[in-house]
């Protein structure tokens, strides 16, 4: 999924993923949590890591301060 719109806001699926990542989750757990295929989650995680919206901690991903702030916009 493409996470970030051209205007800098998040796509609905990225918002759902970031909201779920208020707690650390592995990609498979995140896929189950927001009911999206694993391949889309892997792509999304890659994009959100690059944008600094999430970070990796011991094989799981969690929203950063920037990521949490983005959800509210």
């Amino acid at each position: 999924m493409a996470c970030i719109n051209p205007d800098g806001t998040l796509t609905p699926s990225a918002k759902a993923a970031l909201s779920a990542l208020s707690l650390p989750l592995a990609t498979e757990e995140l896929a189950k949590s927001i009911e999206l295929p694993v391949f889309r989650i892997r792509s999304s995680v890659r994009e959100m890591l690059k944008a600094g919206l999430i970070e990796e901690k011991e094989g799981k991903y969690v929203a950063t301060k920037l990521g949490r702030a983005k959800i509210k916009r």
Partner: protein
Amino acid sequence: MEEKIISETREVISMPRLGEMAPDFEAVTTQGTLRLEDFKGGWLILFSHPADFTPVCTTEFMAFAEIYPELKKRGVELLGLSVDSVSSHIAWVRNIEEKMGVKIPFPVIADLDKRVATLYGMIHPGESKTETARCVFVIDPEGILRAMIYYPLTTGRNMQEILRLIDALQTTDKHKVATPANWKSGEAVIVPPPNTQEMAEQRLKEGYECKDWYFCKKNL
């Protein structure tokens, strides 16, 4: 008289090979930028179509969408491809939903630079120099290319054969057997032929349905 040298260059088409790792790629799709590795751990059918907004391809997309739930039950994802742009793909899948009432649930690669098409030998210049043929690549959870089907531009693919192929490959992996011609899920399978004389003698005593030592079937 000036001698004219006519040089003929023939493009060599690289083809992926069965039993080897499927060529890796990263591509723009209708569902974001995807890599082959994003599908690892599950089965993947990568398929190409000649062009968006064409009638045979439209029937195929609707047919792929129809078998998608059956594929999901088998742990298989679908990934389409053509050399059209992502905007064209988006417009086409929206058109299919609007005019035909069929939602396309799988991503479609916009392979404008033909990078993935070239890696997988999808362009057959004898058919078309600019469009991909109707190719199907079955890639297993380890990323190994397990089966390929190539159809010409004029002939739409048979979805039941694609489902049958997936069932056959998964049955082979699970039970270490082979499947005979026209096999369908639930029918008897082929027991791999013995490799030694001793095994051949033993084979006829093992309770399989045998025509001869090399030709035995069993029910799963």
